[in-house]
Structures are given as structure tokens and as C-alpha cells.
């Protein structure tokens, strides 16, 4: 005996659980079209009406959208990598090698795409900035969003920088050595920088010391890079991305869009 399809659908979509999640039917009526737009979760990101000119891909090349997509991809693969990576000096490199040898399903794919996507995000965010600059989209009333964008660029670079140490290999180790020594030469903050003597900065109380959690790159530095990379910086970037999108939505697209 074949059950009546209409009755099955009626049974699924007619009960209270379904109706509490889906507020209107899928039937193509003018009323449902409006409800799809107005009651949509992306209402704040996407305008209810889209102008024909904004479908022209060559104005933005969707560079900001690409950067956001990569950010989501990095979050997803990063969380999966965290299940198999230990931020410990005796384990970190071995865990990374194990992942590369597929000790976990998709291990090599996860690690390699996470790294390549990290490089790609720096590239797309720079091209996005270049596009905004060349089209003059930073001008009034969008100055504040340009500033938010610059902070997001810095956060992207910091995410890239902190992630560099996590494999605990020679490349990352010496890159962080060089990078934190540059921080040690910051004016008014580093022990090798200008005015260090005036403020009494030494190797064990300056900005480099606070970044590394010690006077040289040891276990605390790896742990700090891990926490900044996995929790603090992505949270900050996520919040600012929301602010960034909200301002785009409120200020309107630039140019003919």
C-alpha cells in the first residue's frame, strides 16, 4: 500500500514543531516572496532589493566576500585541526607531521588547505584593500569602515604570524625569532628600541617579553601563539567582520551599485 504523499507532507509540515521553525510555506506567491526576504536571517547583510549594476562582478570581484569565505574555511579546518594538535614543544612538530601523514582522516588535506588558505587570505585581503582604494570606496561616508578594514588587515597578518610558529619547525621558529625581535625594537615598548633606557626596559620586562612569555622562544611562547591564534584573534576578527558588514549595509555600496 502506497501512502498518500500529500498526507505525509501535511503530517510533516502541518505540526507545531515544523511551524515553529518555518514561518511560511514554500509556495511561490507574492506574499511568500516578501516573507522570504523580510524574515530572512541574512536580511541585515543583503539588501531586500538588488540593483542590476551590482551584479557586475568586475567592480568588486567579490574580494571581500572571498576573504570572508576563507575566514570561515580557516575557522572550520582550524577547529578540526585542534582535535589532533597539542601546543607542547615535545608534541607540536610530531603532531603536525602525523597530520601530514594522514594519522587522522583528511589530516594532510586539513593541514595543507589550512596553511594555503592562510596565505590566500593575506593575498585576498590586500587585493580587497587595493580595490577599495582604486574605486575610492573609502571616501565619505565610509571612512569609519576603511578604518575597521585596516584593523581587520592587521588582525589577518597577526593570525598569519601566530599560526606560523605552531608547527614548531625551523621556518616558523626563526620567523618568530625575527618578528619578535622587531617588536623588541619598538619605540617606548621594546628593550632595544628608542627610549628603552629612559623607561627602564630590559629583556625581561618589555613588549617582546609579554609576547613570548619569557626572554627566548620556549614552551610559553608556543602556548601563547596557540591561544592568540585559536581564540583571541579569531574572536576579535569575527566581531569586527560583523561591524564591517553592518557598515557596508548601512552606508550602501559605493560606485554605481
Amino acid at each position, binding site marked *: 500500500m502506497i501512502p498518500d504523499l500529500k498526507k505525509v507532507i501535511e503530517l510533516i509540515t502541518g505540526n507545531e514543531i515544523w511551524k515553529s521553525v518555518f514561518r511560511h510555506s514554500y509556495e511561490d506567491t507574492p506574499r511568500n516572496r516578501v516573507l522570504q526576504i523580510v524574515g530572512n536571517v541574512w536580511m541585515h547583510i543583503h539588501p531586500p532589493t538588488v540593483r542590476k549594476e551590482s551584479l557586475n562582478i568586475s567592480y568588486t570581484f567579490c574580494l571581500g566576500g572571498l576573504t570572508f569565505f576563507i575566514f570561515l574555511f580557516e575557522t572550520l579546518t582550524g577547529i578540526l585541526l585542534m582535535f589532533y594538535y597539542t601546543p607542547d614543544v615535545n608534541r607540536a612538530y610530531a603532531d603536525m607531521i602525523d597530520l601530514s601523514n594522514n594519522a587522522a582522516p583528511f589530516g594532510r588535506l586539513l593541514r595543507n588547505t589550512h596553511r594555503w588558505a592562510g596565505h590566500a587570505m593575506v593575498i585576498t585581503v590586500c587585493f580587497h584593500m587595493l580595490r577599495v582604494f582604486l574605486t575610492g570606496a573609502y571616501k565619505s561616508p565610509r571612512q569609519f569602515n576603511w578604518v575597521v578594514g585596516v584593523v581587520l588587515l592587521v588582525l589577518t597578518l597577526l593570525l598569519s604570524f601566530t599560526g606560523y610558529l605552531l608547527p614548531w619547525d625551523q621556518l616558523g621558529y626563526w620567523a618568530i625569532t*625575527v618578528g619578535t625581535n622587531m617588536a623588541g625594537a619598538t619605540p617606548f615598548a621594546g628593550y632595544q628600541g628608542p627610549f628603552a633606557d629612559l623607561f627602564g626596559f630590559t629583556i*625581561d620586562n618589555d613588549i617582546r617579553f*609579554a609576547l613570548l612569555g*619569557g626572554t627566548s622562544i*620556549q614552551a*610559553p611562547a608556543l602556548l601563547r601563539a596557540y591561544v592568540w591564534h585559536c581564540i583571541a584573534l579569531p574572536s576579535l576578527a569575527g566581531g569586527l567582520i560583523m561591524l564591517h558588514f553592518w557598515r557596508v549595509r548601512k552606508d550602501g555600496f559605493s560606485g554605481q551599485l
Partner: protein
Amino acid sequence: MAEVEKTEVTASTWTSRRGFFTYAGWTIFLGTTLAFMAKTFSFTGFFFPKVLFEPSKKFPVGYPADFPDHGVVTLKARRVFIVREGNNFSAISMVCQHLGCAVHWTEEKGIYECPCHGSKYYKDGVNFAGPAPRPLFHFDMHLSDDGKLMVDTSTIIERVTVLTI
């Protein structure tokens, strides 16, 4: 109408009981938050550890006779070169003066070279090429009671000073 206006004015004034507790509550809340934030992010705050678990800056490197004459011995883990010229010993830092990479001794050229940005130093640690702004550090040395060479990387001495045995 006049009665309503009077009530509003009284309620919004900080001299009322409700106004006082509103101000007091916010002051305590924001003050406590600010104090914790200040201690967390300030100089010598949360991000400056009070105890360090790092290798000792004073360590023995071996007996003087074990070091070859006119030779440079690389102690990789300690980041230090031991240079012997006859009876004179000096301990030279491996840390490049440019951005802190580890320089290495190139025997055939008789110089120290940095792999990161190409700084070069003579055997006595004086820089002559690349971006390095100053010579490599020389560390204080002395003999321990059992006759071993001791290096103290917390004390930087003048380049011409050597330990003569």
C-alpha cells in the same frame, strides 16, 4: 500635569535614593572592570610572567684542555661559541645582532655567517658585512673550582677582554 513633571525631575536627580544607587552601582561596576582590565593589559600585568622556567644563564662548558687551539667550538643548545687562542678563551654569542637568528661558524672562510639576512662577522665577533649594526656579544668567563670553564651569559663584557689560563 504639574504633578507628573515634578515626579520626573525628582527621579532623574542623583540626589534621590534611586539616583544615588544607580550612580554608585555603575561606578563600582565600571571601576572594578577598569581595574581588572588595567592589571591585565598594563606594563608588568597579566602577560608578564613572574616566574621563568628557562635554562640557567651560568653554565659549565668543559675543561680548557678539551678545546682545540685556534679553534671555534659551537655549543648549539647554549647559543655560544668558545674561541681559544693559545691560553686565551672567549665566549661569543651566537645570536645575530640584526634580528636574533643563530649565526654559524664557517671554517673554510674563518668567519661567522647569519643564514637569515647575510650578516658576516670576523672570528672575534666584529661585524663587517650585512645589516648587523654591532659586533656579537662577548660573555663573561671564569674557571670553576673543579677546573671547568664557566660562561655567564647575563654579563656582557668588552670585546678585548679574554680569560687567560
